[in-house]
């Protein structure tokens, strides 16, 4: 599609949907609209006419103005300079745009994603020598993109042949030639440090692999109860205000990924600013470096044009695949996929397509599945294995999970962190509902936990879930006949469940200490809650009244423990474990003495 530009004329402007007369233009081709030069994309063809969706507001555009077909589909630039940046839904660098056009985004402004003038220290791959056969994914060299991210400069897909030369170490801008290659037809190609890739086409890899290790997010209810794997796909559905964005931002902050891509898709401007302002200050618990050095933002806020919202998810995932191809574990967060689906709906509505459910077009489910399918762990061409984990927020109207986007998503994903309004209203955060949430990865994750943390992980997890289930059952009884109907043993079960909820599940993102919880600390807290419950249950069997246990100071301490000691103060938690055993034992002894005396 790279021949000459085609020039045509605008016929009809209907909001973001513009009909142009532009014979020969192809479906998916980029088109510049009108005198302002607004960018758009052909979404359908009808005779000599093409329907274009524009990424910018069409205000002021008139019929009769020119439309220019650019000859290529919506593509992104991939190369050093992406990390730490913030881009709009079609990969325009928002910080640079702010310098040029001020506080508001001027229409028709075209700024390339990667800075042309900046030079990068290129270190050639010493293993390559001229004459080597190279192909897609071959690492030509590296650039230290940020202190945390070593950017591997790779041969782009589609290029293959004999290496003629690689540039020596030195500073180059991204357009300089850093390698030359002769393809089998004898044609020589120059390679630079960046490549372009059409966003709607998944980047190729050698083969798909299964996920094997859990993505550690530092959030107990996720890691311990509903684990995600590196390369997995997950969804966070929930009504407004339930905590979807906080969950996603917590994962962006604390997960053990190499690269984080955060796509703000149709959500609030301030939430992106929150990331932009806080990440440069926060330390990555794994590398000790600043979080922003491994993070990249894509922003199409709710007030930005709807069509670019649809594109933003593809732009994000293409960049994610690119870093995956370097052998990295990438996490992409999309907040919110519902807004993306609504953008689809809006365009389809304007095209007069037949809606099927709640106005959504028939292809909603297949588009959703195709996006999530781009997640996964793969064997890359040249850099070992890499993964893209994709986690999408879902914003169901009225919090109704049976609506189309939530229900289709649920069929596609592997982890489902369902947020509940009741829990959020009670300020139980994260409000991930342990009854309706699920993870298909518990078994795989268990292997990791058993090997790395503790062989009793799965047992403790099951015990905790069992307590929570009992809690629901007993609460129903209480609501029918009152608490007096419960035996001491049953009351203690309620108390145990409450320890699990308050001492383990609840985790405030705002608590300086508890915002991140290492796997060791996660297990230690879980183990403690279950131990307290079990020891207590044994005592109650011996006749100790539940009220005596309820008022033990260790009960309050267990609830506070998570924010008393940080992940590197495990010794304190171990010490408390000792205290618990001692206290319980002394209650037992006292009771035994007491019992004998009577």
């Amino acid at each position: 599609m790279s021949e000459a530009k085609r020039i045509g004329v605008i016929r009809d402007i209907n909001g973001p949907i513009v009909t142009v007369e532009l014979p020969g233009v192809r479906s998916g081709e980029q088109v510049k609209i009108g005198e302002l030069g607004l960018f758009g994309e052909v979404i359908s063809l009808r005779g000599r006419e093409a329907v274009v969706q524009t990424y910018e507001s069409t205000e002021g555009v008139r019929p009769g103005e020119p439309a220019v077909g650019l000859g290529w589909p919506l593509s992104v630039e991939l190369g050093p300079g992406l990390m730490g940046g913030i881009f709009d839904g079609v990969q325009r660098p928002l910080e640079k745009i702010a310098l040029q056009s001020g506080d508001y985004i001027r229409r028709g402004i075209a700024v390339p994603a990667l800075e042309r003038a900046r030079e990068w220290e290129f270190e050639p791959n010493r293993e390559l020598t001229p004459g080597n056969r190279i192909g897609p994914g071959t690492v030509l060299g590296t650039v230290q993109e940020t202190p945390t991210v070593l950017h591997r400069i790779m041969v782009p897909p589609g290029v293959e042949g004999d290496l003629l030369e690689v540039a020596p170490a030195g500073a180059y801008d991204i357009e300089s030639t850093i390698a030359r290659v002769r393809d089998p037809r004898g044609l020589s190609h120059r390679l630079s440090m960046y490549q372009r890739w059409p966003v709607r086409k998944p980047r190729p890899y050698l083969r798909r692999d299964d996920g094997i290790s859990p993505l550690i997010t530092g959030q107990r209810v996720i890691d311990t109860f509903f684990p995600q794997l590196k390369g997995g796909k997950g969804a966070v559905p929930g009504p407004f205000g339930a905590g979807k964005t906080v969950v996603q931002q917590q994962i962006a902050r604390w997960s053990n990924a190499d690269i984080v891509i955060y796509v703000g898709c149709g959500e609030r401007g301030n939430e992106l600013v929150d990331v932009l302002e806080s990440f440069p200050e926060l330390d990555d618990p794994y590398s000790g470096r600043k979080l922003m050095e491994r993070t990249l933002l894509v922003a199409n806020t709710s007030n930005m044009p709807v069509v670019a919202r649809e594109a933003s998810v593809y732009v994000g995932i293409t960049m994610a695949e690119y870093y995956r191809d370097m052998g990295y574990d990438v996490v992409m967060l999309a907040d919110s996929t519902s807004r993306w689906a609504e953008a689809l709906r809006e365009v389809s509505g304007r095209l007069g397509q037949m809606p099927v459910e709640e106005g959504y077009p028939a292809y909603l489910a297949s588009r959703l599945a195709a996006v999530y399918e781009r997640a996964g762990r793969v064997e890359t061409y040249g850099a070992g294995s890499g993964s893209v984990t994709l986690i999408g927020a879902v914003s169901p109207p009225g919090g109704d999970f049976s609506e189309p986007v939530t229900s289709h998503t649920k069929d596609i994903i592997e982890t489902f962190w369902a947020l509940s309004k009741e829990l959020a209203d009670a300020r139980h955060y994260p409000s991930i509902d342990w009854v309706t949430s699920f993870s298909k990865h518990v078994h795989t994750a268990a292997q990791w936990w058993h090997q790395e943390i503790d062989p009793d992980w799965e047992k403790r997890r099951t015990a905790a879930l069992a307590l929570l289930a009992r809690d629901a059952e007993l609460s129903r009884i209480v609501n029918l006949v009152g608490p007096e109907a419960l035996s001491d043993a049953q009351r203690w079960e309620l108390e145990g469940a409450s320890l699990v909820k308050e001492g383990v599940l609840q985790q405030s993102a705002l608590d300086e200490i508890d915002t991140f919880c290492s796997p060791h600390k996660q297990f230690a807290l879980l183990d403690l809650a279950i131990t307290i419950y079990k020891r207590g249950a044994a005592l109650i069997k011996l006749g100790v009244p539940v009220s005596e246990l309820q008022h033990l100071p260790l009960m309050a301490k267990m609830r506070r423990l998570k924010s008393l000691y940080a992940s590197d103060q495990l010794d304190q938690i171990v010490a408390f474990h000792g205290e618990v055993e001692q206290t319980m034992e002394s209650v037992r002894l006292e009771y035994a003495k007491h019992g004998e005396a009577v």
Partner: protein
Amino acid sequence: MSIKDYRTAIEARGGLLIVKDTASVAFGDRVHIRDHAGHSRNGQVIRSADNEVLILVFEGTDDLDLENTWVRFLDEPVEIALSPEILGREFNGLGEPRDGRPPVLSSIRRPVGGSAINPAARTYPREFIQTGISTIDGLNSLVRGQKLPIFSGSGLPHNRLAAQIGRQAKLVDEDTSFSVVFAAMGVSYADAKFFRDEFATSGVLRNVVMFINLADDPPVERLTLPRTALTAAEYLAYDLDRHVLVILTDMTNYAEALREVATAKGDVPARKGYPGYLYSDLAEIYERCGRIHERHGSITMMPVVSMPSDDITHPIPDLTGYITEGQIVLSRELHNQGIYPPVHISPSLSRLMKDGIGKDDTREDHPRVAAQIYALYARAQETRNLASIIGADELSERDRRYLSFADAFDERFVGQGEAEDRSIEATLNLAWELISMFPRDMLTRVKETDLAKFYQGSD
């Protein structure tokens, strides 16, 4: 383009007018229409094809006689004139005076549609605003640049609350007061008068701009009114460096007008007949508020949304909640108990509270005491439900304590006078007084150090 009057209107329905044989007309442009009686109407081009345009007529299309309708395309966007003189004035949705005084003359004219703020140009809002209302300041704090709606129902005192906030809002250690942009869509004459009187008696009228569309004014004008009002707010905030509080009432009337027009256009409906783009449309309005780098002024927004049949899942409050940074929810039950302001804290939320409170902003213990109140109140609500089933007498001693806490909380913390302007200090002290009804070991959300400093109980 030469100015030409077209007499080629071929269709009029539901606020929409179709004119054919037009020359190339710009999408979004302003239109002037003269009807058979010689009256002027205003419109905007919402679809422009080769030789046919679709016009949204703000005054509506009732009573148009197509043969005798003259349409002129003004070759400019819909815009308003701005000057410091707008303060103290009253306009309609198009920025035309409603107060009988002459129009604003100024060389500064801005299109009302606005454009998207570059997220990279925003600054995170973090300056605590004291509203003097305990349930807001203590538990759902408002910060400068936030959009925090009031979710209400018919007959509930949302207007009184909004007016009280407009009167009392201030920064704790700064005496800049807010300029108020008041935007009323489809409100009753009595409600508009209430606000006017309210601003007059509290002496802030000189600092207020009002944009008013009454219940019997044309509904289509409601679509442009909040945009016009926000354009004025942006002018006050970013040209005149003022801190602006925008009160939009009632967004439900706005959304209904939007649905009316969408239906006439034949747009595919999503939920309850509202068009699929209601979310984006509302976001265009709400997201105009915030803080911007190196700008001294700011825009804080309090939209009023009345929930049809008190249903928070209705598309209007629902989509609003998905865009705004929290919500203050009013409860009919509390209102019926005579509690003012009847703020139901459980579904209420302020998402920007976290960075505006605490040690350097309000008081060190603030975030934790708020969390503690919420935890206790949530449990107390469960206990109330239980008591309503099995009777309060059947409750344990512990549960009864929750009940008395909840009652005291509703009455003393939630309830306050319409003229009562509580300091944040007073609000937090009251919070401690109430949570001190519980023994220390039940207060697990606060720190030991907080307890040592503020606990007022006996044990």
